[in-house]
């Protein structure tokens, strides 16, 4: 470990496992423009978060049974971000997500069946089995993939927004990414392009405080990430990413501004990953007490309490949701279990378009 240097003013590097520097407090009043908070709507938010939670718990279990292999990055703890944001986006909008995108796919409406079949690598999966956990695609739901290069999806969202505008579509391109992506050059390139060309791009930073195992304050000189886009003239907002209603409200405000021609917006959603980065992570870089503290303010637990306190959640509601989700999940697992393994004979499919497999062969014999 190097000593702090007066020259750069760098902070003393933290010992692994030490508590991270607390992020600045979240400004109050975020609920000022709450969306339509009907009981159905609120129960829908709760239900979607529980759907994602149970789906991923099942994935972790299926991973230990070796039904799912490869990398498996769980979103558990961060559900409020995807669920809140998706509720504020329209069906014509495009979504670009990361390799931790099960929650985005499910919140977006991709059937749990095809998501699970994709986890199994089956032909019936939403990506035909070729992508797996990190690459869920479903163009019928405007989901342009989980992208497993950190920051790799950001310029795609910029390009999708270019297409939306040039083709006269009233649509927004929303990209989700972790706070680790903010350190990538491509984040800054994408932010600059989106603002320079005033494109309808929504940047949603899911700040879970750790880029894999590296804490935010060990990797960023400015840990208040929403400040960064000021240099690109992109209005930004910091949001309590554990509060699904706050995320929905902030997203709605941002999307309204974007649709009004205001150019891109940036949301920094402060959240926390309860589980390991992937199934291979021993979590040596953070204390159990820190995880427990965040679990205490978990998005489902917190929202459920709030619904109970306000009398919105009635007796039996939760049981009904859990039992519906269980049925949906059981059906999804059964669907995946009954899936088809692609024959090896078609291995080389989907490299190029099928229509381009045999291009017309005109043989030029001309002299230069």
């Amino acid at each position: 470990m190097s000593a702090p240097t007066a020259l750069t003013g760098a902070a003393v590097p933290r010992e692994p496992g030490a508590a991270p520097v607390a992020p600045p407090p979240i400004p109050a009043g975020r609920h000022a423009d709450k969306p339509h908070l009907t009981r159905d709507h609120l129960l829908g938010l709760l239900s979607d978060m529980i759907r994602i939670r149970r789906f991923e718990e099942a994935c972790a279990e299926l991973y230990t049974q070796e039904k799912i292999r490869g990398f498996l990055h769980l979103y558990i703890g961060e559900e409020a971000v995807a669920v809140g944001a998706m509720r504020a986006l329209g069906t014509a909008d495009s979504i670009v997500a990361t390799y931790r995108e099960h929650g985005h796919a499910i919140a977006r409406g991709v059937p749990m069946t095809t998501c699970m079949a994709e986890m199994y690598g089956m032909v019936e999966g939403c990506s035909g089995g070729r992508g797996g956990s990190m690459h869920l695609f479903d163009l019928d739901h405007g989901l342009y993939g989980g992208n497993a290069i950190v920051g790799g999806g950001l310029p795609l969202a910029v390009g999708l927004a270019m297409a939306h505008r040039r083709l006269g579509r009233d649509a927004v391109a929303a990209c989700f990414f972790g706070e680790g992506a903010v350190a990538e050059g491509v984040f800054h390139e994408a932010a600059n392009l989106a603002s320079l060309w005033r494109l309808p791009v929504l940047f949603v930073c899911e700040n879970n405080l750790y880029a894999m195992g590296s804490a935010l304050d060990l990797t960023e000189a400015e840990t208040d990430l929403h400040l960064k886009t000021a240099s690109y003239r992109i209005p930004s907002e910091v949001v309590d990413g554990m509060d699904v209603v706050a995320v929905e409200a902030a997203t709605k405000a941002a999307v309204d501004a974007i649709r009004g021609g205001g150019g891109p917006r940036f949301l920094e959603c402060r959240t926390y990953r309860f589980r390991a980065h992937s199934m291979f992570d021993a979590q040596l870089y953070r204390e159990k007490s820190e995880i427990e503290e965040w679990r205490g303010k978990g998005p489902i637990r917190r929202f459920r309490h709030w619904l109970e306190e306000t009398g919105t959640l009635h007796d039996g509601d939760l049981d009904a949701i859990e039992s519906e989700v269980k049925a949906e999940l059981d059906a999804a697992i059964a669907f995946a279990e009954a899936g088809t393994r692609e024959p090896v004979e078609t291995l080389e499919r989907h490299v190029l378009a099928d229509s381009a497999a045999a291009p017309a062969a005109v043989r030029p014999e001309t002299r230069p």
Partner: protein
Amino acid sequence: MTPTITAESPAPATDGTVETTYREACKEALRDALARDERVFLMGEDVGHYGGCYAVSKGLIDEFGPDRVLDTPLAENGFTGAGIGAAIGGLRPIVEIMTVNFSLLALDQIVNNAATLRHMSGGQVGVPVVIRMATGAGRQLAAQHSHSLENWYAHVPGLKVLAPATCEDARGMLWPALEDPDPVVIFEHVMLYNRKGTMPAAAGTVDIARAAVRRPGEDVTLIGYGGTLHKALDAAEALAAEGVSAEVIDLRVLRPLDRETITASAARTRRVVIVDETWRTGGLSAEIAATIAETAFWDLDAPIERVCTAEVPIPYPAHLEQAALPRVESVVAAARRALGRPEGAGA
């Protein structure tokens, strides 16, 4: 940065052909594509107001406006990724990257996104983007503007890679590349831009699938592409003076390689010289040589010869740069070796 080279206008001829330059042919292709399809736009560094680093797009911004000829910041990975996203979204972008050396900054987007999205999505996402870039040495631009790395791209499934060597191909390859449902990377050799050539006045599109026999011959096959095609043709001319009939193949398409044309010629002439400006180690010539060894081994009368760039970053001084590159004399010498007549005709 490279100095702008002034564009020349095509000269009309009377026999139904026009004399033009490679640069003008590239520009005509861009103009035609922009005029044909509203979804097409050109984006890249200095393509608009500056007129293109090599003056290929000079004047197009006046003709089509700044939205169709779009200047970008110096952010290769970002704007190439934006082009890929725009293609996914239904547009037909032509992304220009100044040189292949700079394209390494965009390698992530090209290899990890453009080439993989169709596959990862199980066929849902097509990426009909065209990425043009200059390649090659010869202008004393030293070791960060002069390399030939087209083999890096030719290595990647999911991409198509073109190398127009003639005015007709420079004019005719762009439109079919835009019509192609998959990403196409086009390499334009910097030493070709000023090169004059004739082509039919009504030149249109050409195929982007096959190699071409540019000069038929019997005794030895010389294989080149892009900038090296002309060295191979000059070598064939020199060999003709020695009584050697050399066949010259222009690869045109670097991925997928037209193995059939390569193999047929090698099997017929029984001797092969590959002229390739990529480095010898792991270069495109290695793939071609391996292909011939696999498909025409028993037809060969001599070991396959390779004339490649010396294993050195391209140096600045002219004499060292030229010494590093494939030269006509070295192609002729390689052909003589293949023919078992190292002293040349009459020796």
